[in-house]
């Protein structure tokens, strides 16, 4: 179930304009600076965009707490899944395997 939050169209236009500005900013950084810096800037901007889309468009900021907890739990499962294998992946060899280099 979702709660019926009143949509403020004017505010949503402002949110959309902000999101487009962030995408353009990521593109401009890529074209002017490039390299690892532009990747870091773009990934940081993505986190900001997620918060904005999740909070305003998906109105997570007005949903019951269990919805946020449910989505947070999914992210936590993902973190655990990869945290345990991360250091193995960075190795060239393991107990029964060697890294495949395409």
């Amino acid at each position: 179930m979702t709660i019926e939050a009143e949509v403020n169209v004017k505010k949503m236009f402002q949110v959309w304009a902000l999101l487009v500005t962030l995408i353009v900013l990521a593109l401009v950084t890529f074209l002017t600076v490039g390299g690892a810096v532009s990747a870091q800037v773009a990934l940081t901007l993505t986190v900001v965009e997620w918060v904005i889309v999740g909070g305003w468009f998906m109105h997570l900021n007005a949903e019951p707490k269990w919805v946020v907890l449910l989505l947070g739990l999914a992210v936590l499962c993902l973190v655990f899944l990869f945290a345990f294998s991360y250091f193995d992946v960075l190795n060239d060899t393991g107990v029964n395997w060697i890294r495949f280099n395409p």
Partner: protein
Amino acid sequence: MWLLLSGEIVIFGGLLVSYMMTRVAHPEWAEQTHHTNTLIGGVNAIILLTSDLFVVMAHAAAQKKDKDNAVKYIYLTIALGLLFLCIKAFEWTTDISEGFTLTSHLFWTYYYLTTGIHGAHIVVGIIALFAVSLGVKKGMNYQRVEIAGIYWHFVDMVWLIVFPLYYIAK
């Protein structure tokens, strides 16, 4: 819907995090990543964000039981979803014609898999929105606009991370 999305987080998250881990372990992939078209990725991000706005406006119209505007904005959302798919098809065609296929390098396997699964979600979203529009046209099930909209926003959020990972982090 929220339960479905929590499952989707693990599906897309698994794919994207495994790509990130493999990418970190293979700096030499930069040779391959240089061939993705950043401008097309950015344009597609803006198209999806605009479709997000339209689906929000469809929701606002549905709240007022304004079925004409609700259907109009749903159709605009669908149109932008189709435009996204057309641009994606053009991009894929260009990549394949240049010799970058699913099996040419592990980077391209990840690329086609990620963008392909995302594209499939766009198709599902378009079908869902169209099905919702049929009910709204008859003045029924207005609440479904919001539910389909939440799914659509999620699909857009996925593109917002695919864009920097595959098009900017070169």
